[in-house]
């Protein structure tokens, strides 16, 4: 029994050691039962811990493609324009702005009395330095998204600046919202540190980023916009769903995003926790290759749309969350116009297939990635289409392989793709990105994501015209027409639009998620 005593002794020693380590730990973010005691400590310190599902990739606002990194940047950095809770454009560092009729000149009047976290002044010089950084550096993501079209940046006064484009570009206004301002001193002297520790004008300033573990920001006392907010926020990437939920329940995190669908009911019954749902701009669809048989026949494509029950899709695949996709764009996207949906009607679908010359159906492939939700979605489509005699073979591929298979095709003739189960998300304020890469004939792979190889000269012309003017009423008219035409042509099986779900501890307020899935905690408070 001597060994048993030793074993017990060692385990006790370790537990003691762990307890001591915890006591020494001044960071109150990370302990259990805490659910009341420790989280109360965090609350009294006016701090937040936010658990998100993915790692942050870069803190360079001019080179960011993922929503998670953008959300963190939003707290530290501000652009001339920004996005409100509905994802629409609002003024931030710009006091006012105007766009010329030919959509080539953008003039901004700037907020005065704004300073960067390093003490630099925000003025027209600072804006010029930022815009020129993006328009001159080809490796930056924003370069190819509009900023390469800028021909000149002119300072009109200390707080007024004019940007001229070489050609009209509809989404430019959204790009100004995405392009956050970095301290000109940093751009001049310390370019390499921008992806690691950016300096902006936002309500929070950067403190520390340990890759893969946490990123911490703290309240910036000299913030020009004033306001009352939590003093410190720690973001933690927690990819495992169960762990994220455990953190919220234990009070180790005050906000988790997203909440896994299977845990919504359980968390909704927890009095310490609030669950919120927001309609998003994430559209799910099956892209149908309209260039090749049998999907080149509109009747076949319409038959597919009648055969798939959208309500059942949301219940089975999306855990009951979301809304049916009733246009070519989600309802939160600017200029959205609801279309008459293809109601679930198996008989009509069969009739259409017979008219198209396929009374007994046919065999077809559907492609998708290896994600379990995608698999579930593809199986659902397989089951639904089997009811009209169409035999669907599922081919799931790892994301990189799938991307090669799809974008490897240099011409529509090369394409092996028949159906692709996928989703698309664009800024709510950017209808160009929600339409042109998907439906314009210049966007066939590998040049864009028009994987339906959809081609309609009228649609092309509508998109081109809308993109070349600044008149919003005319744009609305053109985009409404576009939605009607493309929805009728059915290059997709229109499925659903996601709702994003986030959870907060009951004592936390002011946390929002916008339709693009960006987490906004700039006005978060802990009671």
């Amino acid at each position, binding site marked *: 029994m001597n060994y048993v005593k030793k074993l017990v002794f060692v385990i006790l020693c370790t537990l003691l050691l762990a307890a001591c380590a915890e006591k020494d730990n001044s960071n109150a973010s990370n302990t259990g039962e805490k659910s009341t005691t420790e989280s109360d400590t965090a609350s009294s310190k006016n701090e937040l811990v936010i658990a998100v599902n993915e790692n942050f990739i870069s803190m360079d606002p001019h080179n960011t*493609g993922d929503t998670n990194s953008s959300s963190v940047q939003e707290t530290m950095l501000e652009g001339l324009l920004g996005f409100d809770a509905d994802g629409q454009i609002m003024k931030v560092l710009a006091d006012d702005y105007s766009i010329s009729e030919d959509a080539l000149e953008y003039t901004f009047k700037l907020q005065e009395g704004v300073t960067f976290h390093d003490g630099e002044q925000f003025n027209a010089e600072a804006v010029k330095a930022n815009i020129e950084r993006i328009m001159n550096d080809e490796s930056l993501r924003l370069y190819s998204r509009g900023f390469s079209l800028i021909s000149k940046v002119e300072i009109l006064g200390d707080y007024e600046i004019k940007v001229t484009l070489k050609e009209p570009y509809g989404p430019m206004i959204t790009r100004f919202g995405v392009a956050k301002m970095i301290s000109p001193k940093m751009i001049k002297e310390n370019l390499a540190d921008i*992806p690691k520790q950016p300096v902006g004008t936002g309500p929070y300033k950067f403190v520390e980023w340990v890759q893969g573990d946490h990123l911490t920001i703290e309240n910036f006392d000299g913030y020009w916009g004033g306001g009352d907010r939590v003093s410190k926020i720690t973001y933690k990437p927690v990819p495992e769903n169960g762990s994220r939920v455990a953190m919220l329940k*234990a009070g*180790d995190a005050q906000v988790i995003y997203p909440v896994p669908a299977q845990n919504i009911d359980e968390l909704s019954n927890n009095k310490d926790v609030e669950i919120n749902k927001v309609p998003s701009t994430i559209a799910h669809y099956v892209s149908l290759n309209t260039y090749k048989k049998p999907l080149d026949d509109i009747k076949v494509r319409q038959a597919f749309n009648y055969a798939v029950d959208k309500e059942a899709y949301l219940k089975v695949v999306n855990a009951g969350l979301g809304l049916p996709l009733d246009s070519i764009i989600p309802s939160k996207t600017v200029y959205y116009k609801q279309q008459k949906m293809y109601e679930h009607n198996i008989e009509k679908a069969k009739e259409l297939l017979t008219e198209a010359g396929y009374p007994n159906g046919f065999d077809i492939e559907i492609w998708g990635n290896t994600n379990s939700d995608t698999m579930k979605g593809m199986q659902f489509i397989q089951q639904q289409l089997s009811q009209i005699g169409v035999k669907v073979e599922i081919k799931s591929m790892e994301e990189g392989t799938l991307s090669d298979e799809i*974008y490897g095709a240099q011409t529509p003739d090369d394409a092996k793709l028949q159906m692709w189960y996928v989703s698309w998300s664009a800024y709510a304020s950017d209808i160009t990105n929600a339409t042109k890469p998907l439906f314009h004939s210049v966007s066939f792979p590998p040049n864009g994501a028009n994987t339906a190889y959809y081609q309609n000269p009228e649609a092309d012309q509508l998109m081109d015209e809308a993109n070349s003017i600044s008149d919003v009423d005319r744009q609305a008219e053109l985009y409404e027409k576009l939605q009607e035409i493309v929805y009728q042509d059915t290059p997709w099986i229109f499925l659903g639009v996601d709702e994003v779900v986030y959870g907060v501890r009951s004592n936390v307020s002011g946390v929002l998620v916008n339709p693009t899935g960006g987490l906004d905690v700039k006005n978060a408070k802990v009671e």
Partner: protein
Amino acid sequence: MWKYTAKRIVEMIPILIVISILTFLFIHLIPGDPARLVAGKDATLEDVENVRHELGLDKPILKQYVDYMKNLLTGELGTSLTTGLPVIDMFKTRFMPSLHLTFLSMFWATLIGLMIGVFSAINKNKWPDYFGMVTAVSGISIPGFWLGLLLIQLFSVQLGLFPTGGLDGFSSYILPSLTLGAGIMSMIARFTRSSMLETLQADFIRTGRAKGLKEHSVIVTHALRNSLISVVTVAGLQFGFLLGGSVVVETVFSFPGMGRLLIDSIAFRDYPVIQSALLLFAFEFIVVNLIVDVLYTVLNPKIQLDS
């Protein structure tokens, strides 16, 4: 022993070169265009070509490899394609937590495994033996992700003793290391038990007992020491696997280690990170094997490594 160690260290160089070539080729052969993944799905062909040029991916593979090796020799591991950060900086924050986690897991696994093994052997076919072996079989049968979630639910959510995840002081290591070490603990327990049972039947043990040695001395000094060789072999091999194989545990506990970094990098086809991480794992594996071989002579001086 020193001569042998030096020889083995020199031998590591060609092995690492071959590994670097193979990993370089493999990661370039797997489908998936990093330029397309970095540029994003709404990128045009021109954007993708810009990114490819910027990342140097438009150069011939041989040139890319030579450049990579040249940089490696100067201690430069390149820049991550996704984050734009130097790979070495990314490793700095990830490597030590992974190493500490591995060491702690091995510590638990060896300590508890040895105890269970010895205890089971000296109580063969009695209830402590059955109990020990049930524990050992459970440790190896329960999947890591499930055990991890179970421990989080019990010790973090219910009892509030440890953090649910992340890295925040020593207490953050306890649950992940127990989860990671469970499988190895079981293997060590089973190997120790069978090895001890065999040794306890040996003539020198009988002689020792006949000479009146204390039971404690027979078990620890003679039987256990002689049983350790096979245990060290198993532990050494497992240790090598642990260094790179902690992906599941690191994911469940949101632990910022090398395993998670590698998986994330593979998803993005982040060549410089994948290449350097694989090379580092290979290096660690070789070093651990060398240490195991050297340990043999310490445990049993009769083993002549030089010969």
